[in-house]
């Protein structure tokens, strides 16, 4: 069963952008890079990239080759290529994903980024931070927080009009 959620995502994204700007200022970071995680994270990152007026192009990451469940589920052939059109070495990075649950995707994304170089710092921006963490990872900026049971899944659809929905899985 899927229920649409009525959040005004434009407002949520504007709020995230404002808080990211404040965090960057606080840390004295002037020229950050942004990387979105396929697929939903790239949609969110595209909006934030524009709202923050970041000049360098948006980077995209597909973490399929860095997942920790390869033995169980194999590798999906439709892996989207990762594309980081910049050097990450010594740069400040804002990493963006749509939903933070277990933290395993972020663990994999950090590993992949470090295979491109050693960034100066990484900030994590998440549209929906939800319960269910399995690793010591938290968002620096989260648009929404939800307390959900393990049988509930929050899903972002896009890319034209971003909307959230809640799905109950048995």
């Amino acid at each position, binding site marked *: 069963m899927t229920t649409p959620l009525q959040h005004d995502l434009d407002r949520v994204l504007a709020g995230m952008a404002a808080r990211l700007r404040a965090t960057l200022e606080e840390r004295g970071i002037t020229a950050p890079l942004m990387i979105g995680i396929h697929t939903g994270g790239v949609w969110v990152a595209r909006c934030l990239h524009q709202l923050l007026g970041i000049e360098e192009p948006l980077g995209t990451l597909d973490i399929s080759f860095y997942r920790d*469940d390869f033995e*169980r589920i194999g590798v999906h052939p439709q892996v989207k*290529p990762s594309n980081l059109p910049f050097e990450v070495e010594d740069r400040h990075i804002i990493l963006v994903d749509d939903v933070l*649950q277990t933290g395993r*995707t972020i663990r994999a994304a950090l590993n992949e980024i470090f*295979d491109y170089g050693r960034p100066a710092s990484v900030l994590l921006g998440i549209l929906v931070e939800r319960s269910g963490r399995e690793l010591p990872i938290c968002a620096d900026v989260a648009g929404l927080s939800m307390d959900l049971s393990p049988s509930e899944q929050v899903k972002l659809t896009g890319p034209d009009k971003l909307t959230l929905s809640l799905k109950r899985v048995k």
Partner: protein
Amino acid sequence: MNTLKNLQLDATGNLRHFLTIEGLKRQTLVDILDLAESFANIKAQAVKKVPLLRGKTVVNLFFENSTRTRTTFELAAKRLSADVLNINITTSAASKGESLLDMLHNLEAMHCDMFVVRHADSGAAHFIAQNVAPHISVINAGDGQHAHPTQAMLDTFTIRRHKGDFGDLRVAIVGDILHSRVARSQIHALNTLGVGEVRVIGPKTLLPMDHRSLGVHVFHDMESGLAGVDVVIMLRLQRERMEGGLLPSEHEFFQRYGLTGDKLKLAKPDAIVMHPGPINRGVEISSEVADGPQSVILEQVSNGIAVRMAVMAMALGRQPGAETGRET
């Protein structure tokens, strides 16, 4: 053929061994090509490795020498973070009289996960796949005159990168088709992927009798065979064929079937020239063409790494249950 087909796939239809193109669905081949495309991007990373096969051990079992194939398999496994063991059988226990099965069981006892097999006998990889422990995957790296499926996949990968859709293409394979496992696998792969027309060009003594069942058009001269083709695949002429009396001389072969700049003009102006290597300059191909702007021979070598990574990842990452959603 039926057992061979089932042997390659697990109960859910996923690749378990990779022994031959025959019996595989178009979608499986497309999956390999798509995954290889993603692996081809890894070269942009400072660390040219992904951790997919960390903790797995891949054994290169080469009963027949092949530097290029062995090194690209080795690099592919290493870029997937697997450990690699290279066993050159001519210098190993086989020469001390140990049986093949005894040797396999010893390697199994060392907890290896994949055998990459190259053998001069047709069916060798198939035999090994039938006799290994259930957790081991076998990849055929060339068996006798039977098959060389990863070569066929890297060739179709190279063609797709240059030409896009397979449907409208005319592909010509030139040379010793009869004795070539490369040609046999290429023909199966090209037909499975829906290539418009596959042609084979060569002297009668070097073409198979069953070309109709292979789904190819046969030509005995380059002039008509190369007309209007998009891809020219040259095969290596094995010199030992000359001794068998199937061919008059290298010189005459080059005159009739060697690819020169003039003959290449018969193909489409944007045709690409391929060769599985190693090339015999002046026997099947002139240096002018091998090093010319239409040649993609070295690209084939690079693509071989990405394609072999894809096949290894698919064979070792099999899934017992249905795929779950992506964790967040």
